[in-house]
């Protein structure tokens, strides 16, 4: 049982590290969504199902949409070879 928590926590850490290292903004948005997914599971396992429900609704669904809208609105202002779709 505790092995599953450690496993999901390892997935969360790997996704967070990759979200820092990746050079693509939309990939970083996807990886942050995976971090939120794993955080919801950790909240559930720590005994807070209502917090897990809120995290699933806000963090995984709504913040991905808002981040994508922000990337779309601001990418015309970005100049440089490292920022790409």
């Amino acid at each position: 049982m505790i092995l599953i928590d450690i496993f999901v926590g390892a997935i969360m850490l790997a996704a967070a590290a990759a979200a820092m290292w990746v050079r693509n903004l939309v990939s970083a948005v996807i990886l942050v969504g995976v971090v939120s997914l794993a955080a919801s599971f950790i909240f559930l396992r720590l005994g807070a199902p209502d917090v897990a429900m809120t995290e699933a609704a806000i963090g995984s669904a709504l913040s991905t949409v808002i981040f994508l809208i922000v990337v779309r609105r601001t990418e015309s202002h970005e100049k440089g070879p490292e920022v790409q779709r």
Partner: protein
Amino acid sequence: MASLILTAALAVVAVAALMATWQLLRGPDTPTRAASMDVLTSILLPLIVGLAVKSGRGIYIDVSMVYALLSFLGVLSLARYFDRGL
């Protein structure tokens, strides 16, 4: 016997999550990462339901239902972004 089968099922789901995470981390392009995020979302649901059966807590089923109802929004917005822009 039932506990053994449940543990084996959770192990299979964990292996599937491992493979989806591998594809998420090394995916060369962004649509691969989007697809693997969708796969990870679908994998987390049987993990939660299996833990609900194993630990005997009914509230996990409710969380799993809310998650299944809401998890399509992120992938839907990503698909819209890849198609013609959000």
